[in-house]
C-alpha cells in the first residue's frame, strides 16, 4: 500500500505519465529546427555533386560541420519522439514497445554515424593541410 492520496498520484501526470513534457519538447525542438533547417538545406545540398575531397573539405569547415551536427542531433531526437507518437497511435502492447525501441535506436545510430563522419572529415582535412605545408 502506497501512502499517496489519489490526487497526489494524479497531479501533473495524465495518461502519458509525464504530463505535457513530450509535447513541450516537440514544440521547443520544432522552433530550433525552424531556424536550422532552411540554412541546412543549402549547406548540405550544395555539397552534393562534388568529388570525395571536395565533400570532405566542405563539411570540415566549422559552419557546415557544426550546423550538420546540430541538425542531426536535434532532428533525430525530434524524429524519434515524433515517430513514437505515431506508433502509440496505431500499435499497442509489446509491438509498440519494440517499435519505439527500434525507432529510438535507429535515430541514435544515425546521429552517431553523422558525428563520426564529421569528426573524421575535420581530421582528414587538417591532416591534408599539414601535409601541404
Amino acid at each position: 500500500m502506497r501512502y499517496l492520496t489519489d490526487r497526489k498520484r494524479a497531479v501533473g501526470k495524465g495518461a502519458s505519465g509525464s504530463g505535457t513534457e513530450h509535447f513541450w519538447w516537440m514544440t521547443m525542438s520544432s522552433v530550433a529546427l525552424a531556424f536550422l533547417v532552411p540554412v541546412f538545406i543549402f549547406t548540405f545540398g550544395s555539397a552534393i555533386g562534388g568529388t570525395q575531397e571536395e565533400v570532405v573539405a566542405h563539411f570540415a569547415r566549422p559552419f557546415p560541420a557544426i550546423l550538420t551536427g546540430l541538425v542531426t542531433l536535434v532532428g533525430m531526437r525530434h524524429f524519434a519522439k515524433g515517430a513514437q507518437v505515431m506508433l502509440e497511435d496505431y500499435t499497442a502492447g509489446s509491438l509498440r514497445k519494440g517499435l519505439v525501441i527500434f525507432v529510438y535506436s535507429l535515430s541514435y545510430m544515425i546521429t552517431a554515424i553523422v558525428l563520426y563522419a564529421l569528426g573524421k572529415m575535420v581530421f582528414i582535412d587538417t591532416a591534408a593541410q599539414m601535409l601541404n605545408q
Partner: protein
Amino acid sequence: MAETKRVERPLSPFMIGPYYRPQMTSMSSILTRITGNALIAGFFLGAWWLIAAVSSPGYFAVVDWIVTSWIGWLFFTAMLWSIWYHYLTGLRHLLWDTGKGLEIETAEKLGWGALIGATGLTLVSLIILWII
C-alpha cells in the same frame, strides 16, 4: 486510498475513410505525419553518403553514384518537398498552439498554403542550389 488498477486503454479509431470523408484539414494533417516520418529515409541516405566520404574511394563512388544519379536526384527532391511541407505545417502547429487560426475556413486555407508553399519553396531551393 485506492489500489492502482491497470486499465486496458483502447486505441483511438482510425476515422478517415469509414467515418469521415477526406477533407483538407484531415489530409493536410496526416500528410504532416507522413512527410515527417518519411524524412528518416533522407537522413539515412545522407548519413550513408557522409560516412562513405570518409571511407575508401571505391566505396564513396558507389554511394555517390546513388546520391548523384537521377534516382538520387528524384529522391532528394521528394525529401526537399517533404521537409518544406513538414516545415510549413509545423509552423501552422505553432500558430495553432497560440489558439489562432483554428477556424475551419482558416485551417483549410493554411492547408492549401502549405501544399502550394512547399511546392514553391522546393522549386526555389532547386533553382538556388543549381546556381550556387
